[in-house]
């Protein structure tokens, strides 16, 4: 169980996270849904210390760690356990698709180039990009970039994988493919926290769903709790809207 406690974050006068508590069971997939601008991306970013929380802790099972910390070693320790798929991909612009996957393996994990390339090709293959290994990001389509981002994040086999709308640029077939990947990761024991707007995907992929609004949790439960029997009127309203 990975536990997140009392996470606060404000930008200027704007309270973006207002005390988030979240439990992510081992090997579970927890999905955060909620309106645009409600703080979903910010939550993920704060967990990976890409943004410093104003306060809050994360506990991987060996004691709570302060998410507001400025201590380099602590931050790197947190990050070493986490993988991140960015909403806007953030591929390394000066590296090929393959290098995007292998660079962190070589330079952060200390793997040999050969080993890294083997892993890199395997992961690119998994997301259907075996033929695009030597292409630079600027020559890839949106969906292709997003899949490289997924391959990069899972290649490091993190304890916790954060996914920020991992299917936003993907067509239905690819979404199905990514769903397959996520299920397989879950069965391999990967713990995942995901933000998505695709409710059908959320329902299929998640063990646990969190509905988020104005930087706070409105309601949470199993996928079927939330989608079929929401207890809060606001959740029901959100889900009734367009694409549930």
């Amino acid at each position, binding site marked *: 169980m990975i536990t997140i406690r009392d996470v606060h974050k404000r930008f200027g006068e704007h309270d973006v996270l207002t005390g988030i508590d979240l439990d992510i069971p081992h090997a579970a997939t927890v999905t955060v849904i909620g309106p645009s601008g409600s703080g979903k991306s910010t939550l993920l970013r704060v967990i990976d210390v890409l943004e410093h929380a104003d306060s809050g802790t994360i506990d991987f099972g060996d004691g709570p760690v302060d998410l507001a910390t400025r201590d380099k070693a602590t931050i790197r320790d947190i990050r070493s356990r986490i993988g991140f798929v960015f909403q806007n991909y953030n591929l390394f612009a*000066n*590296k090929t698709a393959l290098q995007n996957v292998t660079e962190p393996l070589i*330079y952060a*994990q200390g793997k040999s180039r050969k080993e890294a390339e083997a892993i890199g090709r395997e992961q690119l293959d998994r997301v259907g990009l075996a033929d695009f290994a030597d292409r630079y990001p600027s020559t890839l389509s949106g969906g292709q970039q997003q899949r490289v981002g997924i391959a*990069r*994040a899972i290649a490091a086999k993190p304890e916790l994988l954060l996914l920020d709308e991992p299917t936003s640029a993907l067509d239905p077939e690819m979404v199905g493919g990514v769903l397959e990947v996520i299920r397989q990761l879950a069965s391999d024991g990967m713990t995942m926290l995901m933000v998505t707007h695709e409710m059908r995907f959320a329902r299929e992929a998640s063990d646990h769903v969190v509905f988020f609004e104005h930087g706070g949790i409105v309601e949470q439960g199993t996928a079927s709790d939330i989608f079929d029997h929401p207890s809060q009127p606001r959740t029901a309203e959100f889900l009734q809207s367009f694409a549930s």
Partner: protein
Amino acid sequence: MDGRVWQIVVDSFGKLLIPGITVTIPLTLVSFAIGLALAIIVALTRVARTPVLTQIAQFYVWVFRGTPLLVQLFVIFFGLPSIGVTIPAIPSAIIAFSLNVGAYASETLRGAIEAVPRGQFEAGYATNMSYVTIMRRIVLPQAFRSAFPALFNTFISLVKDTSLAANITVVEMFMTAQRITAVYYEPLALYLEVGVIYLLFCTVLTWVQHWCERRLAAHS
């Protein structure tokens, strides 16, 4: 241009080219290499905003960008002996030029580093690369690309600034032109000639610049 002047120009060519090749070029290359290494360190220090080091880096840039290169040469060559440090002319020149290049180029690099999209850093952090690794593998290569023309400005300036070494007894190309002028009293012709030789050197650098730019552009 009459025959006499033309003759002087022709006779001088070899005399100018020799110090050009034996002094100007090596002095430029060595000083720029050291200066660029220094610039990278200083730029990284400034971007990192570590308390004391950043202030030292800022002070260094302030002094060496803000004072004339000639004064820097003077202080290193003529001033330091009074506190017991005597450095020969060529090493003094290399020290002064390197420090000067370091100050200017570090500012260029800093601007370019700060313009690399934050997402590139974040992707590096998220994959748990160290700050240094992110810089070395991801950010600096991208920063260099946009900074390239400005860095070559500094490089090409240096080619010509090496002539200031004449002030500390280094016999280089421009000084040689002045010597010939002192005999024949043809400053305009000789300055033009030495200008053409500098242009020759800088043309090669411009080619190198454009070649590198094309290579870097292909890789992104």
